[in-house]
């Protein structure tokens, strides 16, 4: 699985929760999930669960708390997949 594959799937998971469709259209690795995409912070819980299902990984609360940008999510997924 390439980093680009992971990023594409991360964006697909975040897409329904993104209130800023403009920021979503111009999404980059540095895009903030909360500040730029304007995802309701409560929904981060659902996004993390979706990461777990999509990539078959476990994400504990400490790891989840470190996810701010799209790239944070991508790097977390890549690291967990590498550790499998």
């Amino acid at each position, binding site marked *: 699985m390439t980093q680009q594959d992971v990023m594409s799937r991360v964006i697909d998971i975040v*897409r329904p929760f993104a*209130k800023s469709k403009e920021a979503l259209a111009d999404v980059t690795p540095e895009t903030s999930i909360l500040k730029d995409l304007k995802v309701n912070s409560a929904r981060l819980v*659902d996004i993390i*669960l979706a990461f777990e299902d999509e990539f078959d990984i476990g994400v504990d609360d400490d790891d989840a708390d470190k996810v701010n940008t799209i790239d944070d999510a991508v790097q977390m997924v890549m690291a967990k997949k590498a550790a499998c």
Partner: protein
Amino acid sequence: MTERVVVTGMGAVAPNGVTLEEFEANLRSGQSGIRKIDKLADLKFTCQVGGVPPAAVEARTEALFTEEDRLAMNSNITYGAIAALDAWEDAGLVRPESGDDEVLWDTGAIIGSGIGGMDTIAERLVPLVNAGKVRRLGSTCVEQIMASSVTAKVGGLLALGNQVTSNSSACTTGTEAICMAFDRIRCGQAKRMVAGGSEGSSHYVWGAFDAMRVLARGFNDAPQSASRPMSATAAGFVPSSGAGVVVLESLDEALHRGAPPIAEVLGGAINCGGHRMGGSMTAPNPAGVQRCIRGALADANTDPSQVDAISGHLTATMADPKELANWAEALGLPASKLPVITSTKSIIGHSLGAAGGLESVAAILMLRGGFVHGSLNCEDLHPAIEPYAASIPHHTVAKSDLRIIAKAGFGFGDVNSCLIFRKWNPQDKEVFQ
């Protein structure tokens, strides 16, 4: 401070129609929304028929709500929110943009449910908690199971800034919600309220009623004959689901924005029989019912002789004959002089907390359209209801002089509520109650 209150919009999601137009057309034609529910048969329910809004509701849901919205909307919230948005649009109001910062401080909502998000509780919350997977519940469970789930959603969709709450009083919930919203506007605490009742579709809800042996028995192979209020062969109510919502406004507010009133809420009453004098958790105290009806008429400054029609609670249980007697007693009329009376549940079943909302919408549609829909499946009237036969149409009847209709709801807990609606006539603008 006393404001006159008018209905300016209506929305309905019912087993026989998922738009207001479809609901009205099927009330007029007597098109039943009751059908066989395979799941109930699979689970060995005694009653295997029910009323569920048809599949067209799914397309409406996709059209009205974002994908994120839909992730946190069970059937109760979906029906209630669609009916609320439809009522809003019917009132000539524009749905606010989700991103703007304008709050409608003078507009609120009271939309109740009898049971609420049982599908979410039974199919998601309980299994995951029991499996030790609490974390897998995610963030969307609470907002779907909290008692205020429908109005919590509607408050955001419509940017409401006044009181936003959900009542619950069993099968009188929807009628009571409209009564409470009416009071809030009348006393000047709000200019506009979105009010009614909603109930989701869940065999877990219906199972509890099936166990009580209060659901229809013996008509599983004839679903459209199963809901038989006032019939000698009535054998329990048919469970159903949906939502009925109205937009109420102060008359001044409606006239100010040029919104044509459909009907005026002349008055209402809410009470409880205290489980005394024959009343119990499941049976109404006749004195309580009669006081409620009389109280609503007094509140409406309306003489019983002015009531042109009654939209009864009439569920198809043993309470139907008692209800007829209570109406006659409360209005001070012999059986043969009772105004025309009809049972919307004969067409759409008993949608519990949504019933009062849907039946109020039906009552206002009848006022606007000058008709009274028929009560299905009661050609064989219950012997105790025979004396009222002349007041019970089996098919839709035109009634162009229909002016005032009384709508009541009664529920478990011995609770009652009654509303008096009057068809809007522009000349009424100058008439003070």
